[in-house]
């Protein structure tokens, strides 16, 4: 095996650990015996799963630390730049240092692969093994490790570990041999009793972790697709974990099939890239290329050393020159590269539940809550954003604009639905969709770092909030409807408190104008949302035609604050609405609250320092900012321009969020104006929102029913037409055969028989000459000979 960098080794082991865990855990039904003396099965499978993912976290962390020291990830990239004047008027001293990066020529910034800062390479990549080689074409399982990979690995493993631990408590009732599922009613009206599936849950979770880490580790887009599908199937298995519930299995199917619609686009993107570039790799290998000229990757082929796309106008439309290729004249039509980008993005739309494929995510809440926290908020759904960010160099301006608009529409639509949702998990689900929309928007606007920044902070505070809701659900004995809750803060103080942290974080509240040791008093969400809003504002100023891309996130920031505080007030504040529920309610055990506290810690502090802080700085080391293409109508904002709008945007966003919070407090904390009255006044709108903008009905009428109709057509075409033709032939064959038989028996046989009868009759009549007398025979012979001779002479007279 060729040399593999130590960071890659660590990550590869961290990646494979959960797979080993899965293989062992999935058979745990056979080996996890009962606890001594109890009616519960042992927790061994869970401990194993926690061990695997926890080990993965330690390995990822050591890889991250090694990356920090090798690549100087915490140093601002401007450390060697002399041209950058400091902007003293910026309140955020830490951010300032970074913003100057905009003054550095992009070439140096983008081309970290070969001439990166600090002289070293900022990524390592290489091959793990080959899937197939066809002439010059090669598809392999590769790894690609840069600061983004390291951070994603650490984030995923850390959150997954917390959620695994939480799940030990949450899934505890699955350890019995006789688990009662109160949501399943059998034909005789009783509830379903079944053996618990504690071990199975953890084995699925381990499989998911393996798939998710593989997706992040992937060094080529094909491998991303492979793990993309695998996380999809894990999501399917986990959503449908309660296989007996019809709603769960339907939701699982929906999730997978809707994702496949996106993947259909993904495949088209893959086909275009594969046929046009002949490779799937992101960048050339750093490991094991023997010093020879390395095979270039997609990023190096689309953009030149300065991060520029070489567009050329020809008679047949614009083309993009392929860089770094053996054949200097190689090119790809411009529209085709746009189509490839849109195709890949279609995959991201499905996975990240963006408009118009957002419908599967709320239904996915049928899965157990830890699943919602891990798969459907923190990691898998963020994979779409991750891929959009990872593939950023291949996206042309048209694609980016599409991404931005899709993000903007999504974040608004989802937020409006969240206002009226009453199921605590569904509110969070819509909130997740909305926040993913923010990330997509940021990436589409060129705010690469801001989008990923939000991805990480969101992962922490949203998984925190999901776990809190899980804690509430367990505490309230599987009640999820918020109108039945209320006042729970007294019964569940830790949950209420950590939830509040999450809510504040997502709303982006902060104490303006005050700073502590040079840091703003704000939770993680403030920094990342601020970065996005600032990017959007700058973008809107540079491209006034697209002001909507700024308005949508700004308004939605207010809506977000409103529905999140609504959720909190509904659940934890006020007086209990259902006294019985309240009385039986209890705080969750330590195994569940400790993960909450850990996640709350990160939800507060992970983004400390904002855009000057360690997290953002480390992410930005992987950034590849494209220069905008000269003849594109869009101007992407630079870091410096964004910095100019930063303060203004921050104040606006804070103001809007404060208004939202205030409204929520008035309506759901104080009760004036009464939300019930408003609901009645806007009954039509309310219903429209409750019906989720009627996307489900629309898709049902547009796609699902037609598909079944076509299927029925094809099936009956087979039976009626194709088999009909065949049967006609068969039938004709039989008819012909009957005919033939008649012909044979009546005509042919008739003639033959007639002849036979005649011959017999002649024989009979001639039998009289057969007398046995020799003289008579001799006479016959003589007569015969004479007759023959006469005939001969008569017929052949000359010879």
């Amino acid at each position: 095996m060729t040399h593999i960098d130590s960071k890659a080794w660590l990550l590869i082991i961290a990646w494979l650990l959960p797979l080993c865990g899965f293989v062992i855990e999935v058979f745990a039904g056979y080996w996890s015996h009962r606890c001594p003396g109890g009616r519960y099965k042992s927790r061994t499978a869970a401990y194993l799963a926690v061990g695997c993912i926890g080990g993965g976290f330690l390995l990822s962390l050591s890889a991250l630390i090694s990356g920090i020291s090798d690549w100087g990830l915490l140093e601002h990239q401007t450390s060697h730049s002399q041209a950058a004047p400091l902007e003293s008027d910026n309140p955020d001293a830490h951010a300032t240092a970074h913003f100057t990066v905009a003054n550095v020529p992009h070439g140096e910034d983008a081309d970290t692969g070969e001439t990166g800062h600090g002289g070293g390479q900022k990524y390592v990549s290489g091959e793990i093994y080959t899937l197939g080689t066809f002439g010059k074409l090669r598809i392999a399982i590769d790894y690609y490790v840069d600061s983004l990979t390291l951070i994603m690995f650490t984030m995923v493993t850390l959150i997954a570990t917390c959620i695994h631990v939480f799940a030990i408590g949450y899934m505890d009732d699955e350890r019995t041999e006789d688990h009662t599922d109160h949501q399943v009613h059998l034909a005789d009206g009783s509830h379903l009793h079944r053996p618990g599936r504690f071990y199975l849950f953890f084995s699925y979770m381990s499989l998911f972790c393996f798939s998710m880490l593989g997706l992040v580790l992937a060094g080529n887009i094909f491998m991303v697709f492979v793990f993309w599908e695998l996380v999809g199937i894990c999501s399917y298995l986990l959503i449908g974990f309660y296989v007996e519930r019809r709603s769960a299995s339907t939701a699982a199917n929906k999730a997978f099939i809707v994702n496949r619609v996106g993947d259909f686009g993904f495949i088209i993107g893959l086909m275009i890239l594969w046929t046009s570039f002949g490779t799937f790799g992101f960048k050339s290998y750093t490991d094991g290329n023997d010093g020879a000229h390395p095979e270039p990757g997609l990023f190096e082929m689309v953009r030149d050393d300065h991060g520029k796309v070489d567009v050329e106008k020809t008679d047949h439309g614009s083309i993009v020159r392929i860089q770094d290729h053996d054949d200097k004249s190689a090119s790809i039509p411009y529209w085709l590269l746009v189509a490839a980008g849109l195709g890949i993005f279609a995959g991201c739309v499905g996975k990240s539940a963006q408009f118009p494929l957002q419908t599967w995510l709320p239904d996915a809440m049928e899965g157990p809550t830890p699943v919602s926290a891990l798969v459907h908020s923190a990691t898998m759904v963020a994979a779409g954003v991750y891929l959009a960010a990872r593939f950023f160099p291949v996206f042309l301006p048209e694609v980016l604009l599409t991404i931005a608009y899709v993000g903007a529409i999504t974040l608004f639509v989802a937020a409006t639905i969240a206002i009226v949702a009453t199921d605590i998990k569904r509110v969070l689900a819509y909130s997740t969709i909305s926040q993913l929309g923010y990330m997509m928007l940021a990436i589409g606007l060129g705010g690469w770092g801001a989008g990923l920044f939000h991805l990480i902070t969101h992962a922490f505070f949203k998984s925190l909030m999901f776990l809190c809701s899980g804690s509430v659900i367990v505490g309230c004995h599987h009640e999820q409807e918020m109108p039945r809750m209320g006042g729970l803060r007294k019964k569940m103080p830790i949950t209420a408190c950590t939830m509040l942290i999450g809510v504040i974080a997502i709303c982006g509240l902060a104490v303006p104008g005050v700073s502590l040791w040079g840091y703003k008093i704000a939770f993680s969400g403030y920094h990342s949302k601020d970065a996005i809003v600032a990017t959007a504002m700058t973008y809107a100023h540079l491209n006034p035609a697209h002001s909507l891309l700024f308005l949508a996130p700004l308004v939605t920031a207010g809506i977000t604050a409103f529905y999140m505080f609504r959720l909190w007030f509904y659940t934890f504040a006020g007086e209990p609405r259902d006294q019985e529920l309240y009385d039986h309610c209890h705080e969750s055990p330590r195994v569940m609250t400790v993960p909450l506290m850990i996640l709350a810690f990160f939800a507060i502090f992970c983004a400390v320092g904002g855009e000057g802080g360690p997290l953002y700085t480390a992410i930005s080391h992987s950034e590849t900012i494209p220069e905008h293409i000269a003849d594109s109508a869009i101007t992407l904002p630079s870091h410096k321009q964004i910095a100019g709008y930063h303060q203004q945007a921050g104040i606006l966003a804070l103001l809007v969020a404060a208004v939202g919070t205030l409204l929520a407090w008035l309506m759901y904390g104080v009760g004036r104006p009464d939300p019930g009255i408003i609901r009645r006044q806007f009954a039509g709108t309310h219903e429209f929102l409750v019906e989720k903008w009627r996307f489900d009905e629309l898709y049902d009428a547009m796609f699902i029913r037609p598909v079944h109709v076509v299927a029925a057509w094809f099936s009956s075409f087979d039976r009626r037409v194709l088999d009909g033709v065949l049967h006609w032939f068969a039938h004709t064959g039989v008819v012909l055969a009957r005919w033939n038989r008649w012909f044979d028996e009546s005509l042919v046989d008739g003639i033959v028989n007639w002849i036979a009868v005649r011959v017999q009759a002649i024989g009979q009549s001639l039998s009289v000459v057969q007398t046995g007398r020799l003289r008579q025979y001799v006479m016959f012979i003589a007569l015969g000979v004479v007759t023959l001779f006469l005939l001969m002479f008569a017929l052949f007279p000359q010879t």
Partner: protein
Amino acid sequence: MDDFHILLPTLVIFAPTFGAIILALMPRDNVEGLRYTALTITVVTFVLTLMLLGGFDFDDPKMQHEVVAAWIPNWNINYQLGIDGISLPLVLLTSFICLLAMLASWSVTKQVKGYLILFLLLETGMLGVFMATDFFLFYVFWEVMLLPMYFLIGIWGGPRKEYAAIKFFLYTLFGSVLMLIALLMIYYNGGQHFDLVGLAEQAQDPEGGLLVDLTMQKWAFWLLFIGFAIKIPSVPFHTWLPDAHVEAPTPISMILAGVLLKMGGYGILRIAFPLCPEAVGHASTILVAIGVISIIYGAFAAMAQTDFKRLVAYSSVSHMGYVVLGMGVVGVVGAAHGEGFIGSDYWAMGINGAMFQMLGHGVSSAGMFFMVGVVYDRVHHRNINEFGGLASRMPLYTGLAAGIFFAGLGLPGLCGFVGEVFVVLSAWQFSKLMAIIAASGVILTAGYILWTLQRVYLGAEYKGPHEEALTPIRPRELIVAGVLLAFAILLGIFPNTMFSIMDDSIQHLANGMAGKIGS
């Protein structure tokens, strides 16, 4: 090469025949003895094919283990065998699936002796088809395989067995007749011999040619193609398949889907393509269209089925569509990229993908039919809407079945994915529209497979009759299903194990033909 290696191909082919003779001499009431003897024979055959693999040179694209002996010298007919990278994986697949199907044959209780004898004769026929390098011998084996299959469906089948058996027989026979015509055309135009290797070289010779008259060559190609397309089966020649599958007993369904269908694809690669290269260039668009139509049509038709086995049968039609598509994406030189990009690499990838799809489908469809058989043996019905809740009653079985159905769905890490995706990826250079339509198949496939899984395995209650018969999976069934799933995973994770066998021969074929098509 020593004597043993010269004998080996013959041994492989006739080991099952030899076994059939032994069985014929055994008493008919010792059912277990008969079964174990037959099982031993299939194991021996499998081991012999593994020895073929052991002696195989992966880097040699040409025929290996060649055996030539005059058979009917007057007509230049030889007993001629050989294997290359295209046939070896299929030979392995055949002996492998036969071994598992034999294990699954314990469920057959009627006239066991006759069944086992026919089963083994069928195996001989199939192995012969994959190893014959003489066209006439190929034809003979092709017919030899037909008869046992006819009886196996017609005697041991379900309620409409006679209809299904006759439909199968006539369909295939029709194809054989077309092949026979083509065989004669080639014989009289190609130096009056049947040596496939020699004929291929002649056909791909840039100076000369086999069927020099293009019209004649096109005729020969289409006759051959239809003959093989019936076997694949491609839409619209596929209607024998659902009936044959529905009526055939489980192990025979496994062989039918796992091996028999592959003979069509193999025939195209071994005979129709190399012998009529120029015609392939002209026919490619239609081939691709047939492949794509099969993919979509099969998937839609599968979605509408309520008979579990019929559904799996239609999924076979859909999956085998990728095989035709992959073979048809003829690429000579990529026009868009000048000299740097050689389209024939993409074509070779398409053929590789098609071959892999055949192997992957061999494993996954045999597995799917077996899984259907397992529940059918218990509850004696196959109505998808009258299942449900099997997951809680037969958890291990459900886990294995889910794995195998996911392989059919084309999930990465399982065997169905690699073939499908490689074929689709290679299709774009040929036709963007066709590639897009083919790719849309992934949505439909996910739709009908997941919907089926939901109706059969998930849910709270079993809705059909004979609920008490739903007992957990038995060890013998477990072995068959487990081995199939293990191979589905193995092929899915390490596809290069197969590509490394196939690639050189396929490259050789594609390059040889590309020269002729491109000129």
